[in-house]
């Protein structure tokens, strides 16, 4: 959409595809990278992107989708932060014969015809990967392992899933004990603040599991402030693998990071093209994500883009 809104409406006449993308907001660096990836790859793929930011509000996202329907875009894509509550508007999209692609997270509607496909990470799996590393790390040891957990924003999907995935894996072994678990709201400042309190309330902390890098980075400062060595005195596992996190990992301050890639733009654009062309697409596309330990981080760091 240019300045004058030219190009809105159906792009079919001139052959370019119009994609309406309803982003949740810009609550974190991760999300911003996600947005940027979508925008950049749309430009690269020659797709006309209509972008809207819902500022963390599901209502706004629904409004945006509805506007895309009135504007008759070719494809609608959006990142539902909340898994429920989309049926009505998606039915409207379906009635208007506009295909929908979910990014980042699935919705829990029984009607699977409401969307074409879903591309994104599996937060539960991420939690599991974190837990598995921990299990291997402490294999063979018997003394109890005291874990503190920095959760994401209360009620948010990544927080819920990363918590439960992690818990599922470690519950098999009674030596793992989560001694404190509190929300750090995905931010560094809160991460630091909560960790300071943890350090005072619990004498013996062995492991910190933070639901994202930022909280982990905040916690590192708290740990250093208490005169301990992060990564050594307290082992740290985080999720995301943003640049700062990778740096800390490479520096030995973090022990393990589970990647959660925001860069699903290129994959999304491929899907969009396929959907418009009428090709069949898989029901679920999981983004390519790995995990990093300290050595891998050193290797990967130089070409980390975000």
């Amino acid at each position, binding site marked *: 959409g240019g300045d004058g809104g030219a190009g809105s409406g159906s792009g079919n006449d001139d052959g370019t595809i119009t994609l309406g993308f309803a982003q949740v907001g810009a609550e974190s660096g991760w999300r911003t990278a996600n947005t940027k990836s979508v925008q950049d790859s749309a430009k690269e793929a020659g797709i006309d992107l209509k972008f809207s930011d819902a500022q963390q509000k*599901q209502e706004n996202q629904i409004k945006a989708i509805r506007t895309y329907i009135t504007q*008759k875009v070719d494809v609608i894509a959006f990142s539902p932060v909340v898994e429920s509550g989309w049926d009505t508007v998606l039915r409207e999209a379906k009635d208007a014969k506009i295909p929908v692609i979910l990014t980042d997270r699935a919705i829990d509607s029984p009607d699977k015809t409401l969307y074409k496909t879903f591309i994104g990470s599996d937060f539960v799996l991420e939690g599991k990967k974190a837990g598995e590393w921990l299990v291997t790390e402490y294999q063979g040891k018997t003394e109890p392992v005291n874990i503190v957990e920095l959760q994401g924003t209360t009620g948010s999907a990544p927080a819920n899933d990363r918590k439960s995935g992690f818990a599922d894996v470690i519950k098999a072994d009674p030596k793992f004990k989560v001694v404190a678990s509190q929300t750090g709201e995905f931010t560094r400042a809160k991460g630091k603040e909560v960790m300071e309190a943890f350090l005072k309330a619990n004498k013996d902390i062995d492991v910190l599991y933070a639901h994202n890098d930022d909280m982990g980075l905040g916690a590192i400062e708290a740990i250093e402030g208490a005169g301990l060595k992060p990564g050594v005195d307290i082992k740290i596992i985080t999720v995301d693998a943003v640049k700062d996190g990778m740096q800390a990992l490479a520096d030995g301050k973090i022990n393990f990071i589970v990647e959660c890639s925001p860069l699903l733009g290129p994959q999304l654009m491929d899907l969009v093209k396929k959907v418009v062309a009428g090709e069949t697409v898989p029901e679920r596309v999981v983004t390519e994500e790995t995990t990093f330990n300290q050595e891998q981080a050193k290797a990967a760091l130089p070409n980390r883009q975000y």
Partner: protein
Amino acid sequence: MTAVPGTVANGRSRVLRPQQKYLPIFATLALLVLMYSAGVLRYDGFSDTQVVLNVFVDNAFLLVVAVGMTFVILTGGIDLSVGSVVALTTMLSASLLEERGWSPYLVLPLVLLLGALLGFGMGCIIHYFEIQPFIVTLAGMFLARGLCYTISTSSITISDPFWTSIAQQRFRFGGFFISASVVVALVVVAIGIYVLGYTRLGRNTYAIGGNPQSALLMGLPVARTRIAVYTISGFCSALGGVLLSFYMLSGNSGHGLGLELDAIAAVVIGGTLLTGGSGYLVGTVLGVLVLGLIQTIITFQGDLSSWWTKIVIGVLLFVFIVLQRAVTRRQR
């Protein structure tokens, strides 16, 4: 004594007065139309009537919440709990319907009653213990949101047939449609206008906002009225929550985050004084439309990054407010 004052007053009566009373409303309306026209000129497809109707469809719940908020603000109070009560309502409805399998005919009145009850409780504390509404309703906000989380931290989809049928109910006319929620919201607005303009409760609301001490000395039922407005606001929030659950067909603790600010902004943009005693519900409706229209314009623009979205919202709000202020001031 000579009847001199009489002659003085004759003739000078009601100069400018009726217009002046409604001037902010007219100014707001005119600016709203201006904004809409700008949108029509700038974006294709904006002139589609459905765009305007969608503003109603998308903001029906906000409208209902704002009606309750108008009552509270007219008394000079404030209700910060509305957003959380909305969330609590969606959450409670969803959990009762889906997880407990209760009948919707039981759930609906129950959640409405609960909202009203919460408002009632806050009103009582505000009035009898003379604590500032800001704090009491802030505590109410924490309470309601906290209750949401204790019900569940994840969201619950509503698949109840009654709920879904209302949610998908469309009133169509000539290719356009509005949802059932819009009808409910408009009815609430109409009732609100009637109550404020034509009942003692409504007039007492204005009186308390004008001067609570005087209202008391004039022998008005201050306690009853003040508690009533918070009850009304609680009820409206619950109803707004029900409408939101129609709109989303889900219950979620995160719903309605920051909604209280939107509602307050709508009321104040509509010309109601935050200090109480002056303002109209029609203004509130306009205020909601202004916010909705700004959102629509942003969406139509379609190429704003997240931060430019916020900045543009701020700028549009600023332009609107300043113009509104300029118009009403010059006319005085």
